[in-house]
Protein backbone atom coordinates (compact mmCIF):
# COMPACT_ATOMS: atom_id res chain seq x y z
CA UNK A 1 0.00 0.00 0.00
CA UNK A 2 1.35 3.37 -0.96
CA UNK A 3 2.24 5.72 1.86
CA UNK A 4 0.93 9.25 2.09
CA UNK A 5 4.29 10.75 1.14
CA UNK A 6 4.71 8.35 -1.79
CA UNK A 7 1.34 9.44 -3.17
CA UNK A 8 2.34 13.06 -2.73
CA UNK A 9 5.60 12.66 -4.62
CA UNK A 10 3.78 10.62 -7.27
CA UNK A 11 1.27 13.49 -7.67
CA UNK A 12 4.12 15.95 -8.12
CA UNK A 13 5.62 13.80 -10.87
CA UNK A 14 2.26 13.11 -12.53
CA UNK A 15 1.53 16.83 -12.65
CA UNK A 16 4.98 17.49 -14.10
CA UNK A 17 4.54 14.76 -16.73
CA UNK A 18 1.14 16.20 -17.64
CA UNK A 19 2.58 19.66 -17.99
CA UNK A 20 5.47 18.26 -20.04
CA UNK A 21 3.10 16.42 -22.33
CA UNK A 22 0.99 19.53 -22.71
CA UNK A 23 4.07 21.64 -23.55
CA UNK A 24 5.16 19.21 -26.25
CA UNK A 25 1.62 18.79 -27.61
CA UNK A 26 1.21 22.56 -27.79
CA UNK A 27 4.53 22.91 -29.61
CA UNK A 28 3.56 20.16 -32.03
CA UNK A 29 0.14 21.73 -32.67
CA UNK A 30 1.78 25.11 -33.13
CA UNK A 31 4.29 23.58 -35.53
CA UNK A 32 1.49 21.91 -37.47
CA UNK A 33 -0.40 25.22 -37.76
CA UNK A 34 2.74 27.10 -38.74
CA UNK A 35 3.53 24.48 -41.34
CA UNK A 36 0.05 24.69 -42.87
CA UNK A 37 0.06 28.49 -42.85
CA UNK A 38 3.52 28.51 -44.37
CA UNK A 39 2.47 26.06 -47.09
CA UNK A 40 -0.45 28.30 -47.96
CA UNK A 41 1.74 31.40 -47.99
CA UNK A 42 4.44 29.72 -50.08
CA UNK A 43 1.79 28.42 -52.51
CA UNK A 44 0.46 31.96 -52.89
CA UNK A 45 3.97 33.31 -53.45
CA UNK A 46 4.66 30.61 -56.02
CA UNK A 47 1.32 31.27 -57.68
CA UNK A 48 2.09 35.02 -57.85
CA UNK A 49 5.57 34.37 -59.21
CA UNK A 50 4.25 32.06 -61.95
CA UNK A 51 1.35 34.41 -62.75
CA UNK A 52 3.76 37.34 -63.11
CA UNK A 53 6.10 35.22 -65.21
CA UNK A 54 3.20 34.29 -67.52
CA UNK A 55 2.12 37.93 -67.79
CA UNK A 56 5.71 39.00 -68.54
CA UNK A 57 6.05 36.20 -71.06
CA UNK A 58 2.81 37.21 -72.79
CA UNK A 59 4.01 40.80 -72.90
CA UNK A 60 7.34 39.72 -74.42
CA UNK A 61 5.51 37.63 -77.02
CA UNK A 62 3.09 40.45 -77.84
CA UNK A 63 5.96 42.92 -78.11
CA UNK A 64 7.87 40.67 -80.51
CA UNK A 65 4.79 40.31 -82.74
CA UNK A 66 4.01 43.99 -82.48
CA UNK A 67 7.59 44.86 -83.49
CA UNK A 68 7.32 42.45 -86.43
CA UNK A 69 4.09 44.18 -87.52
CA UNK A 70 5.76 47.56 -87.19
CA UNK A 71 8.79 46.44 -89.21
CA UNK A 72 6.50 44.98 -91.88
CA UNK A 73 4.46 48.19 -92.07
CA UNK A 74 7.64 50.24 -92.50
CA UNK A 75 8.85 47.88 -95.25
CA UNK A 76 5.44 48.10 -96.94
CA UNK A 77 5.53 51.89 -96.84
CA UNK A 78 9.08 51.96 -98.17
CA UNK A 79 8.23 49.68 -101.09
CA UNK A 80 5.06 51.63 -101.86
CA UNK A 81 7.07 54.85 -101.77
CA UNK A 82 9.53 53.37 -104.27
CA UNK A 83 6.68 52.55 -106.70
CA UNK A 84 5.05 55.95 -106.15
CA UNK A 85 8.33 57.79 -106.70
CA UNK A 86 8.93 55.78 -109.90
CA UNK A 87 5.49 56.88 -111.09
CA UNK A 88 6.20 60.52 -110.20
CA UNK A 89 9.54 60.44 -112.02
CA UNK A 90 7.78 59.02 -115.08
CA UNK A 91 5.10 61.70 -114.81
CA UNK A 92 7.77 64.43 -114.70
CA UNK A 93 9.47 62.87 -117.72
CA UNK A 94 6.14 62.68 -119.54
CA UNK A 95 5.40 66.29 -118.65
CA UNK A 96 8.60 67.37 -120.38
CA UNK A 97 7.73 65.25 -123.41
CA UNK A 98 4.26 66.74 -123.34
CA UNK A 99 5.66 70.23 -123.98
CA UNK A 100 7.20 68.94 -127.24
CA UNK A 101 3.80 68.01 -128.64
CA UNK A 102 2.49 71.40 -129.71
CA UNK A 103 -0.93 70.11 -130.65
CA UNK A 104 -1.51 69.15 -127.04
CA UNK A 105 0.78 71.62 -125.31
CA UNK A 106 -0.51 74.86 -126.84
CA UNK A 107 -4.07 74.35 -125.53
CA UNK A 108 -2.67 73.61 -122.05
CA UNK A 109 -0.33 76.61 -122.15
CA UNK A 110 -3.24 78.77 -123.31
CA UNK A 111 -5.44 77.56 -120.45
CA UNK A 112 -2.67 78.20 -117.93
CA UNK A 113 -2.22 81.73 -119.28
CA UNK A 114 -5.96 82.34 -119.38
CA UNK A 115 -6.43 81.16 -115.81
CA UNK A 116 -3.51 83.31 -114.71
CA UNK A 117 -4.91 86.41 -116.38
CA UNK A 118 -8.32 85.79 -114.82
CA UNK A 119 -6.72 85.37 -111.42
CA UNK A 120 -4.75 88.60 -111.87
CA UNK A 121 -7.93 90.43 -112.82
CA UNK A 122 -6.07 93.03 -114.95
CA UNK A 123 -6.68 94.60 -118.37
CA UNK A 124 -3.07 94.23 -119.46
CA UNK A 125 -0.78 91.33 -118.75
CA UNK A 126 2.75 90.26 -119.61
CA UNK A 127 3.39 86.60 -120.37
CA UNK A 128 6.78 85.06 -119.60
CA UNK A 129 7.81 81.77 -121.20
CA UNK A 130 10.94 79.61 -121.08
CA UNK A 131 13.60 79.87 -123.74
CA UNK A 132 12.42 76.87 -125.78
CA UNK A 133 8.82 78.06 -125.79
CA UNK A 134 9.89 81.58 -126.74
CA UNK A 135 11.60 80.16 -129.82
CA UNK A 136 8.98 77.69 -130.95
CA UNK A 137 5.60 78.67 -129.54
CA UNK A 138 3.76 81.02 -131.77
CA UNK A 139 2.20 83.87 -129.82
CA UNK A 140 -0.47 83.93 -132.47
CA UNK A 141 -1.36 80.32 -131.85
CA UNK A 142 -1.79 81.01 -128.15
CA UNK A 143 -3.69 84.20 -128.73
CA UNK A 144 -5.97 82.28 -131.07
CA UNK A 145 -6.74 79.93 -128.19
CA UNK A 146 -7.31 82.96 -125.97
CA UNK A 147 -9.48 84.70 -128.55
CA UNK A 148 -12.32 85.80 -126.32
CA UNK A 149 -9.96 86.93 -123.56
CA UNK A 150 -7.43 88.71 -125.77
CA UNK A 151 -10.20 90.93 -127.07
CA UNK A 152 -10.66 92.31 -123.58
CA UNK A 153 -7.11 92.07 -122.19
CA UNK A 154 -3.98 93.51 -123.73
CA UNK A 155 -1.37 90.74 -123.83
CA UNK A 156 2.33 91.40 -124.10
CA UNK A 157 5.00 88.73 -124.56
CA UNK A 158 8.15 89.17 -122.56
CA UNK A 159 11.40 88.48 -124.45
CA UNK A 160 13.17 87.52 -121.23
CA UNK A 161 13.09 83.74 -120.83
CA UNK A 162 12.17 82.20 -117.50
CA UNK A 163 13.70 79.08 -115.95
CA UNK A 164 10.92 76.53 -116.23
CA UNK A 165 10.22 73.31 -118.07
CA UNK A 166 7.00 74.72 -119.50
CA UNK A 167 3.99 76.82 -118.70
CA UNK A 168 4.15 80.52 -118.06
CA UNK A 169 4.43 83.31 -115.56
CA UNK A 170 1.70 85.89 -115.99
CA UNK A 171 2.35 89.30 -114.53
CA UNK A 172 0.63 92.63 -114.44
CA UNK A 173 2.13 95.15 -116.86
CA UNK A 174 4.03 96.91 -114.08
CA UNK A 175 5.32 93.53 -112.90
CA UNK A 176 4.09 94.06 -109.34
CA UNK A 177 1.72 91.12 -109.30
CA UNK A 178 2.48 87.76 -110.87
CA UNK A 179 0.91 84.37 -111.15
CA UNK A 180 3.32 81.47 -111.52
CA UNK A 181 1.72 78.87 -113.78
CA UNK A 182 4.81 76.95 -114.83
CA UNK A 183 4.65 73.19 -115.22
CA UNK A 184 7.21 72.83 -112.44
CA UNK A 185 5.07 74.85 -110.06
CA UNK A 186 2.01 72.94 -111.18
CA UNK A 187 3.71 69.60 -110.53
CA UNK A 188 4.85 70.78 -107.12
CA UNK A 189 1.43 72.14 -106.20
CA UNK A 190 -0.34 69.04 -107.45
CA UNK A 191 2.10 66.55 -105.90
CA UNK A 192 -0.02 65.78 -102.78
CA UNK A 193 -3.07 65.21 -105.00
CA UNK A 194 -1.03 63.14 -107.45
CA UNK A 195 0.28 60.98 -104.62
CA UNK A 196 -3.25 60.38 -103.31
CA UNK A 197 -4.49 59.47 -106.77
CA UNK A 198 -1.46 57.26 -107.40
CA UNK A 199 -2.05 55.50 -104.06
CA UNK A 200 -5.68 54.87 -104.99
CA UNK A 201 -4.87 53.51 -108.44
CA UNK A 202 -1.79 51.52 -107.53
CA UNK A 203 -2.78 50.14 -104.15
CA UNK A 204 -6.51 50.78 -103.88
CA UNK A 205 -5.93 53.05 -100.89
Amino acid at each position, binding site marked *: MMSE*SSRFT*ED*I*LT*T*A*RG*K*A*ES*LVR*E*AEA*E*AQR*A*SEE*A*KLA*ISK*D*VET*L*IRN*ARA*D*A*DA*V*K*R*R*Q*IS*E*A*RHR*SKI*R*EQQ*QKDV*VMQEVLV*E*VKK*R*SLEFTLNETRYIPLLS*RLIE*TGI*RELGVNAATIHLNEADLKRVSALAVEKELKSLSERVKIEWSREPIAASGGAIISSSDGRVRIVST*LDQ*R*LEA*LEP*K*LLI*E*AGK*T*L*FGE
Partner: protein
Amino acid sequence: MSGIETVKAIVDAEKEAARIVEDATTRAAAIRKKIGSSIQEQRQQMLAEAKKNASTIAERAKEEGRIEADRYEKEYEQNLRELVAKASAKKAATVEKLMAIITQVDK
Protein backbone atom coordinates in the same frame (compact mmCIF):
# COMPACT_ATOMS: atom_id res chain seq x y z
CA MET B 1 9.60 6.54 6.74
CA SER B 2 11.08 9.19 8.94
CA GLY B 3 10.21 12.84 8.64
CA ILE B 4 13.61 13.63 7.09
CA GLU B 5 13.23 10.83 4.58
CA THR B 6 9.77 12.12 3.66
CA VAL B 7 11.07 15.67 3.06
CA LYS B 8 13.97 14.28 0.99
CA ALA B 9 11.59 12.22 -1.12
CA ILE B 10 9.44 15.30 -1.77
CA VAL B 11 12.47 17.45 -2.64
CA ASP B 12 13.71 14.73 -5.00
CA ALA B 13 10.27 14.51 -6.60
CA GLU B 14 10.21 18.30 -7.04
CA LYS B 15 13.67 18.14 -8.68
CA GLU B 16 12.53 15.32 -10.95
CA ALA B 17 9.35 17.23 -11.82
CA ALA B 18 11.39 20.35 -12.68
CA ARG B 19 13.70 18.25 -14.88
CA ILE B 20 10.71 16.66 -16.65
CA VAL B 21 9.20 20.09 -17.36
CA GLU B 22 12.56 21.51 -18.42
CA ASP B 23 13.13 18.58 -20.80
CA ALA B 24 9.66 19.11 -22.24
CA THR B 25 10.34 22.85 -22.62
CA THR B 26 13.60 22.08 -24.45
CA ARG B 27 11.80 19.54 -26.66
CA ALA B 28 9.03 22.04 -27.44
CA ALA B 29 11.61 24.68 -28.33
CA ALA B 30 13.38 22.15 -30.56
CA ILE B 31 10.08 21.31 -32.28
CA ARG B 32 9.42 25.03 -32.93
CA LYS B 33 12.95 25.59 -34.14
CA LYS B 34 12.82 22.56 -36.39
CA ILE B 35 9.54 23.60 -38.00
CA GLY B 36 10.89 27.11 -38.52
CA SER B 37 13.93 25.91 -40.42
CA SER B 38 11.88 23.27 -42.22
CA ILE B 39 9.46 25.95 -43.41
CA GLN B 40 12.34 28.15 -44.51
CA GLU B 41 13.94 25.26 -46.39
CA GLN B 42 10.63 24.31 -48.00
CA ARG B 43 10.02 27.92 -49.00
CA GLN B 44 13.43 28.26 -50.60
CA GLN B 45 13.02 24.95 -52.42
CA MET B 46 9.53 25.77 -53.75
CA LEU B 47 10.49 29.31 -54.78
CA ALA B 48 13.63 28.05 -56.51
CA GLU B 49 11.52 25.55 -58.42
CA ALA B 50 8.97 28.24 -59.26
CA LYS B 51 11.71 30.57 -60.50
CA LYS B 52 13.01 27.79 -62.69
CA ASN B 53 9.48 27.29 -64.08
CA ALA B 54 9.13 31.04 -64.57
CA SER B 55 12.39 31.10 -66.47
CA THR B 56 11.19 28.21 -68.66
CA ILE B 57 7.90 30.05 -69.30
CA ALA B 58 9.80 33.21 -70.29
CA GLU B 59 12.17 31.31 -72.60
CA ARG B 60 9.32 29.42 -74.22
CA ALA B 61 7.28 32.60 -74.75
CA LYS B 62 10.30 34.35 -76.24
CA GLU B 63 10.84 31.48 -78.66
CA GLU B 64 7.12 31.30 -79.51
CA GLY B 65 7.09 35.06 -80.06
CA ARG B 66 10.14 34.83 -82.32
CA ILE B 67 8.58 32.01 -84.37
CA GLU B 68 5.23 33.81 -84.63
CA ALA B 69 6.89 37.12 -85.55
CA ASP B 70 9.02 35.34 -88.14
CA ARG B 71 5.98 33.62 -89.64
CA TYR B 72 4.06 36.92 -89.66
CA GLU B 73 6.89 38.74 -91.43
CA LYS B 74 7.29 35.99 -94.02
CA GLU B 75 3.56 36.00 -94.81
CA TYR B 76 3.53 39.79 -94.91
CA GLU B 77 6.56 39.84 -97.19
CA GLN B 78 4.84 37.42 -99.59
CA ASN B 79 1.65 39.54 -99.62
CA LEU B 80 3.75 42.67 -100.08
CA ARG B 81 5.57 41.15 -103.05
CA GLU B 82 2.20 40.38 -104.65
CA LEU B 83 0.92 43.87 -103.87
CA VAL B 84 3.98 45.52 -105.40
CA ALA B 85 3.80 43.26 -108.46
CA LYS B 86 0.14 44.21 -108.98
CA ALA B 87 0.97 47.90 -108.45
CA SER B 88 3.85 47.73 -110.91
CA ALA B 89 1.46 46.39 -113.51
CA LYS B 90 -0.72 49.46 -112.97
CA LYS B 91 2.09 52.00 -113.25
CA ALA B 92 1.47 52.94 -116.87
CA ALA B 93 -2.26 53.48 -116.27
CA THR B 94 -1.45 55.54 -113.17
CA VAL B 95 0.96 57.75 -115.11
CA GLU B 96 -1.79 58.38 -117.68
CA LYS B 97 -4.25 59.27 -114.94
CA LEU B 98 -1.80 61.67 -113.29
CA MET B 99 -0.94 63.26 -116.64
CA ALA B 100 -4.66 63.86 -117.17
CA ILE B 101 -4.78 65.68 -113.82
CA ILE B 102 -1.75 67.81 -114.70
CA THR B 103 -2.95 68.74 -118.15
CA GLN B 104 -6.48 69.48 -117.07
CA VAL B 105 -6.86 73.13 -116.15
CA ASP B 106 -10.26 74.33 -115.01
CA LYS B 107 -11.22 77.60 -116.63
